[in-house]
């Protein structure tokens, strides 16, 4: 590259300017603002007071924080593998379909396209103790004599949230994995069958290893998503019963909504730090540069 172009380069950056303005004004500055706010006592109608790290110290002594952190970790540990397995099964099935392909693919996409707050409302009705679909089906098959109190017990609420969330997110994983599956040359499978391998062996020896990079991407992406889960829980349980399903986002929201911006910001900064660490990992692992040339 020669010198004459350098002025050109500077002008080229102007093309990025509108993009940068939006991101800086409405995402970056708010994040920095939250960091600054977390150093203050900042409650509506009260005087702002500089505290340095007092909020963080209180946070680490706050049993509510540990409860929501524990919930969020447990939620990630249960829901992400569950969604991954579901998504993998869906992707393998979709990859085999020849007839009605467009319609079936679209049907799998529908849960992803419906706003989660709206579908969560339907799940709330499905989980209804007296007349919900879940208890109706379970008693129909004769699995349970007694109806299950889905949203009113700790375990029930946890399972309810995991299932409703998996329903919403499995399609996304399916799409990512499907793209990976379709990148596997068909003749590899044919060759393995000629060599006498059955489906399971072929899956283990060919499909899974070749799919691994895509699985890693899906896994990390979902982990970050699960870490910040909000909509489904807000609608289904509101964080209850007794705080049992309070995710970190719900925990922070509860302070914001009561006008405590200092403490709410402290929670969100901690959540941000964890999510940011994971996203750096994600970016590194996805080796995104390869796709761009």
């Amino acid at each position, binding site marked *: 590259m020669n010198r004459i*172009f350098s002025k050109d*380069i500077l002008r*080229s*950056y102007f*093309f990025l300017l509108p993009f940068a303005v*939006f*991101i800086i*004004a*409405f*995402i970056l500055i*708010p*994040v920095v*603002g*939250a960091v600054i*706010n977390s150093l203050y006592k900042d409650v509506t109608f009260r005087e702002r007071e500089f505290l340095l790290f007092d909020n963080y110290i209180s946070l680490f002594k706050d049993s509510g924080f540990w409860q929501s952190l524990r919930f969020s970790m447990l939620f990630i540990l249960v829901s992400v593998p569950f969604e991954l397995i579901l998504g993998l*099964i869906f992707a393998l*099935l979709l990859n*085999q379909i020849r007839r009605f392909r*467009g*319609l*079936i693919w679209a049907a*799998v*996409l*529908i*849960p992803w396209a*419906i*706003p*989660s*707050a*709206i*579908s*969560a*409302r339907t799940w709330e*009705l499905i989980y209804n103790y*007296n*007349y*919900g*679909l879940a208890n109706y089906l379970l008693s129909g098959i004769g699995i349970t004599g007694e109806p299950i109190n889905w949203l009113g017990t700790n375990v029930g609420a946890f399972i309810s949230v995991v299932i409703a969330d998996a*329903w919403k997110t499995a399609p*996304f994983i399916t*799409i*990512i994995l*499907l793209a990976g599956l379709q990148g596997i040359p068909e003749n590899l499978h044919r060759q393995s069958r000629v060599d006498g391998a059955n489906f399971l062996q072929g899956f283990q020896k060919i499909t899974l290893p070749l799919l691994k990079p895509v699985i890693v991407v899906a896994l990390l992406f979902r982990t970050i998503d699960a870490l910040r889960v909000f909509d489904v829980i*807000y609608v289904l349980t509101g964080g209850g019963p007794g705080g049992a399903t309070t995710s970190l*986002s719900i925990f*922070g929201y509860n302070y*914001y*909504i009561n006008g405590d911006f200092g403490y709410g*910001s402290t929670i969100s*900064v901690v*959540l*941000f730090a964890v*999510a*940011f660490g994971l996203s750096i990992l994600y*970016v590194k692992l*996805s080796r*995104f540069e*390869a*796709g*761009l040339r």
Partner: protein
Amino acid sequence: MREEKVKTILIAAGVVLMLSFCLAPFFFMIVTSLSKNPEFLSPAADYQFTLQNYSSVIFKESLHFIDYLRNSIIVSGVAAVAGVLTASIAAFAIARFELPGKMLVLFFALAVSMFPQISIVGYLFKFMTWMGWINSYFALIFPYVAWVLPLSLWILTSYFSQIPKELDRAAYVDGCSRLKVLTRVIMPVAMPAILSTVLLAFIFAFNEFMFALILTSDHHARTVPVGIALFQGLHGEIPWGDIMAASAVTTLPVVILTIIFQRRIIAGLTRGAVKG
């Protein structure tokens, strides 16, 4: 060949199970919305068909459902179009110019798209209050543009990179400026891709919940997801019939769009999520 037959049956069974899981909540929503009594699954009640829930949701002004729907469509529509236009300018620069650090921009956009909303919304609330924008379209449109930008940038950069560079070169030879090359050459060629990106951005903004929950307070700006999440009966009971009818009215267009543009949505999502 018997093995083939077993395989076909297994796949068919699997597909049926998969479809039931994916569609059951949606069907339950529709069926309940058409029922006079939302408790029809309990032994004491029975199912009676009615359109009452739909007419109440659409015509009862006190429910404000139509207001929520209008707000959602305006806010998401404006944000999607503005976001995709902004992203195409940036994507053009990244796909075509020799910009030092352009990979860093993409890297950064990806990281930004993973920020938890809760760490943004507290300050946004203060900022919007200060601007006097709380409970107005502005309070949602600006953050939504920023929210759909990373995804749009990724998808568009990937599409633009695939357009042959000879097209630009011919236009430059004819004396076009770079902005003209973008608007006269790249954008027309990539129009299907741009439109599908607009659709994706629209779905993203339309689904957004937390910003809308915190930055709006009533039907003047509240969006559909928040409106439906907060639907309450007058006496504390949950008006399931109304909620399911409102949900059905909202999701049906989304479902139809998904069926029509299924291929494009999948292509866009794949580009956005798994490059490389």
